[in-house]
């Protein structure tokens, strides 16, 4: 698998009349092990390669992909893509990014740990076993487990296009997670915890991961419902990132030009309280969401999405940028052979000055939210309603666990009502936020 293969396909497509095109090749090797109650349960090994071809005939486009990289298969692929691209509608905004927008160089962001290839399976089994063991030892009420998993993967990507861009990079990813189960007086609860990183030595220790999972699951035992009310809601850092993800969905160029976002036409306006700073940055060395160029070969960069509560930037690729009259922000994230899409790289709500303890202490009567369920967010209207569980706060202290509740509001109001921002950002996911306090939401229960 190499660049010449990609450039060869583009040359063949050009002979057949294609005006522009790009090729992406990805390769992944991965190992995943699962241990449950100390016993090995699953060993799974993956090897896959995929090639995606997108062609333009004038301003009309089509895309194909295949895992069959034989010469005959790729010949068919070029034919088929050409035939489809001739048949789709011409779109004045279509086409590759302008040549000047392509990444001029491919920076080394230190995204590969060579240990991701050939790591002995036993090392992964040992890590998973140790994490689960620490969760089971954390408290006698931790009696069962859905298992602990260790996964490592090596990924390589080559991208080339007819405007002269050709680049490649390799990344690795390591992941350790577990889901212990605790029981007490007929109540049974499950929770999970994880660590993830590009480098194996950047993972939290199995002991820390296991003990945190044990702490999280035992504190849920004996949960009750509360009465329906309007109270302050504190989002635990492990789930606060979901709010940032909703913002990303609403500032995606596609949602905006389709008028399917509650943030349409709001650039420069206040969309959140002045404590809120949201930055998307694909250039952070070793970070999980970093990459040297986006899926169209455009260089990634750091951008303020929300600055002191004001909406500063959308997330755009070449197509959605042309539709909206702007330039690509380097957020193209088209899957191999898939329709165009954008995605944030490392999207973070920047930490504030309060410790999570200070934030909880500021609440007289309210909800410390540690789990969200379901898909109750409507990006068109901002309407928000999700299942919730966590701990009730009384007089500034965590009082008792609660579950079978919903929280509801409108994201527009929720972002403006963020009145405290934690100092505890944990960037083990590409989209992350610290602990957040929202002044008031509806909590539905008994």
């Amino acid at each position, binding site marked *: 698998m190499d660049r010449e293969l990609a450039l060869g396909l583009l040359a063949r497509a050009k002979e057949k009349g294609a005006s522009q095109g790009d090729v992406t090749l990805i390769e992944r090797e991965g190992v995943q092990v699962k241990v449950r109650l100390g*016993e*090995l*349960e699953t*060993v*799974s*090994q*993956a*090897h*896959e*390669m*995929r090639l995606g071809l997108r062609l333009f005939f004038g301003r009309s*486009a*089509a*895309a*194909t*992909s295949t*895992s*069959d*990289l034989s010469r005959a*298969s790729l010949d068919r692929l070029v034919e088929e893509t050409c035939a*489809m*691209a001739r048949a*789709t*509608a011409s*779109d004045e905004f*279509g086409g590759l990014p302008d040549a000047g927008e392509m990444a001029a160089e491919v920076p080394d962001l230190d995204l590969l740990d060579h240990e991701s290839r050939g790591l002995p*399976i036993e090392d992964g089994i040992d890590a998973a076993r140790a994490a689960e063991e620490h969760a089971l030892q954390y408290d006698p009420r931790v009696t*069962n487990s*859905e298992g602990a998993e260790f996964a490592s993967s090596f990924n390589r990507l080559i991208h080339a296009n007819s405007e002269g861009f050709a680049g490649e990079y390799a990344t690795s990813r390591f992941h350790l997670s577990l889901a212990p*189960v605790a029981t007490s007086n007929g*109540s*049974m609860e499950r929770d999970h915890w994880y660590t993830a990183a590009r480098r194996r030595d950047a993972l939290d220790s199995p002991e820390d991961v296991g003990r945190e999972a044990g702490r999280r699951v035992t504190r*849920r035992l004996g949960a009750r419902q509360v009465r*329906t009310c309007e109270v302050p809601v504190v989002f635990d850092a492990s789930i606060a990132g979901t709010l940032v993800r909703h913002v990303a969905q609403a500032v995606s160029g596609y949602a905006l030009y*389709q*008028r*399917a976002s509650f943030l*349409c036409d709001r650039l420069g306006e206040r969309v959140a309280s002045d404590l809120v700073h949201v930055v998307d940055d694909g250039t952070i060395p070793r970070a999980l969401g970093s990459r040297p160029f986006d899926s169209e070969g455009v260089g990634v960069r750091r951008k303020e999405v929300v600055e002191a509560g004001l909406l500063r930037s959308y997330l755009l690729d070449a197509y959605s940028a042309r539709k909206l009259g702007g330039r690509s922000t380097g957020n193209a994230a088209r899957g191999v*052979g898939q*329709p*165009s899409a954008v995605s944030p790289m490392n999207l973070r709500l920047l930490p504030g000055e309060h410790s999570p303890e200070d934030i909880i202490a500021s609440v007289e009567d309210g909800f410390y939210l540690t*789990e969200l369920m*379901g898909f*109750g967010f*409507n990006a*068109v209207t901002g*309407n928000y*309603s*999700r*299942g919730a569980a966590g701990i009730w706060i009384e007089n500034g202290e965590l009082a008792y666990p609660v579950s*079978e*509740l*919903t929280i*509801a509001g*409108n994201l527009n109001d929720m972002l403006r009502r963020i009145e405290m921002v934690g100092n505890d950002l944990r960037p083990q996911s590409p989209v992350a936020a610290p602990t957040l306090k929202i002044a008031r939401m*509806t*909590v*539905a*229960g*008994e």
Partner: protein
Amino acid sequence: MDKSQGSPPAFSPAAFFDERFGVTTRDLDRVLGRAMARHADYADLYFEYRTHDQVHLEEGLVKHASVSTANGVGARVLAEARTGYAFTDDVTIKNLDTAVRTANVIANDRGSDRPARVPAPQAPRRDLYPVPHSFADVPLERKIGVLQDLDRFARKADARVKGVFATLSLENKVVLIASSQGWVLGDFQPLVRCNVRCIVEDKGNRQAGYFGWGGRMALDDCVDAARCEANAREAVRRGLVNLDAVAAPAGPMDVVLGPGWPGILLHEAIGHGLEADFNRRKTSAFSGRIGERVATELCTVVDDGTIPWRRGSLNVDDEGTPTQRTVLIEDGILRGYMHDRLNAALLGMELTGNGRRESYAHVPMPRMTNTFMLAGEEDPEDIIRSVKDGIYAVSFGGGQVDITSGKFVFSANEAYRIEDGSVTQPVRDATLIGNGPDVLTRVSRVGADLALDDGIGTCGKDGQGVPVGVGLPTIRVDQLVVGGTSVRGPSGFQG
């Protein structure tokens, strides 16, 4: 559904893979023999070749068409509770050998003498989706025509329609499963799905409306002009309804669920908790409760993978076991779990044809097929009339469940207030939350109008998505928590 295309041409998955990859039956025997080395209990190979076409329309234009092709083989070895799995998308004898050697790694330290024995399945003797077995393309012009029809019908339906987005997705999959028990069988699995979404806008108020449908059928059986018109209009209607929606109430209320897709309640509240893996591990809120009452006697719930043309149906599951109708709850009593091969063997129970996987790159697990409640006797109108103050929910987005605590949610995107037995104002999207082992004990009325959904469900579990169906007659659930924003004051609701 009436089919007139007659019997499909003979199609042999074994010949298909032999021709494509040069893997013969003799090779399979040899590779499986190797997979069973060192006292493994069971081994299988899952070959898959899949094409997926997608065509998308927006702003009146089909701007994008794509085709993806995937093929590969997954090798699995079972030894007691252990699973070894390896897959490759480069199907050669050499890679098959490497894959089975990797998968066999789990068979090397056998701890007990209790092998996981399983009964041999029958070869599939039926065809639940008798379409022509061919990867020959539906002409792109035909697909574009369907989407343009949907666009035209939706725009014609109302002047407030500002945007129409339509997608047509066609998948064809051929699989071949070879087992260490000495059988090989194959299946050809078509899957069609059509979606239309529109944005409606009135005086600055914007809402989206959506309708999707499909199944395991040929394109022409899915998208005739009359259906396209009706479904495009339905998407518009759903958007328009929400223009007038008021804040949903917050707190427990009597809830009437309409027929069809609201059956997602069963999928979340009951279905996942009855998958055998969670019950073997005793991590389900339903663990050890077979024979107990978990619902009112009005409730009988089944999982049925044998309904012709359905999205959730399969001739055989992804381990080669014929699908069947499995009674999960009978007259309110919990009767059984849904099994894959590994968990049935470890629990000493019968296979139910629920061993499913997303693709060759995934290990099979117990998964649902089409899960629904059987019809009762009441007139749906009477059920609505029985509610003094509540919610009537007819359309839902997704749902989710915590299998261990039993708490589940599902999100209504078309719902109305019921006041004094009459359906009144539409309310905004709201999540409903309940407790799985408890919710069906609150079902006080079951309608005669059982309907299955329109063929849009995809269920996610451990990162694997598989197509499923759900169904429900109109039912009344007493006192379910509704997650709106409008808090009930002493004299009704506040805004």
